[in-house]
């Protein structure tokens, strides 16, 4: 994946977060790719994580196992989510 498609995916995921979690008045640009989504960063919590996982699965047709130990790492930032989605899509394409 080249840099511009990666940036586009990050922007798309930031927008998905805003739409899914109903973060009115926020723009995709308000969620920098490296900003932590949970806790001290954007301030999302565990219910948001579940909601987001559902939306990602629907949108990108990927599977996120509920017992995936790496989930916490994948969900850390917009950048890590984009990388995760890209890798899942690549895996499915093979």
């Amino acid at each position, binding site marked *: 994946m080249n840099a511009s498609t990666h940036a586009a995916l990050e922007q798309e995921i930031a927008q998905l977060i805003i739409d899914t*979690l*109903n*973060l*009115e*008045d*926020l723009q995709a640009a308000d969620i920098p790719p490296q900003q932590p989504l949970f806790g001290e960063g*954007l*301030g999302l919590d565990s*219910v*948001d994580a*579940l*909601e987001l996982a*559902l939306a990602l699965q629907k949108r990108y047709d990927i599977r996120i196992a509920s017992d995936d130990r790496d989930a916490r790492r994948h969900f850390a930032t917009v950048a890590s989510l984009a990388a995760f989605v890209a890798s899942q899509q690549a895996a499915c394409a093979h």
Partner: protein
Amino acid sequence: MIAFRLEGWRAWAPGLESADDWQTWAQSPRVMPDDAQTQPSCAFLPPLPRRRLSRLARMTLETAWPLCGEDEQLPFVFGSRHGETSQTLTLLSDIVERQPLSPTRFGLSVHNAIAGQWSILRGQRGESSAIAGEADTFEHAVLEAALQLDAGASSALMVVAEELPPPTYAPWIADVPFSYAVALRLGKLDATMETPTGDHWQLRLDRARGDSPCALPHALNFLRALLTHETAFEHTWKTRRWNWQRTR
């Protein structure tokens, strides 16, 4: 018999937000057009705390918010006969279509969820109740708030909120012509108070004599009577006749 001082009120419906809007509406009450989308902004909350508020929750918070002081703890009563019909229908539809349920929607699909959100967002640690009655849920909410006064609170906050039901439910829900929320702040009547403010009201329950039900939802008719300075009126539902009187 219940007696209380009305310390304040706020109300919201589509197209009716300010006290002036309601004053005009009270002179000639009409059914407000409701697109089931228009909702209060709750601009006093940042986007993150606002994200899980349903339309009914926003209506409740928007009206209750200014009636509670910054450092005040007030008993809270949430009354709604039908609750979140649109949220319920969405959840049920997802089940029928074998779609996963939204964790947020599911987590908030209890009648006291809005009272809980009020408690969290306003840091209220006192009593709160969520009730659902029949078409006279309004009077039962007043009763509940009056019981809080009787138990020692000097003031109590109550909100009655209803949302226009989705068309699927329309054949069974006849008492919500449009979405509305009415918040009242009730105060204890104190004979020793030298300069009492606000109107004094009495509510008495009698047996109905076959009177016809009120054309408006009871909370809205109370508001209409309040704003048009009516001094006495009745709300009848089944065997119950609620007798309202303004005493000063």
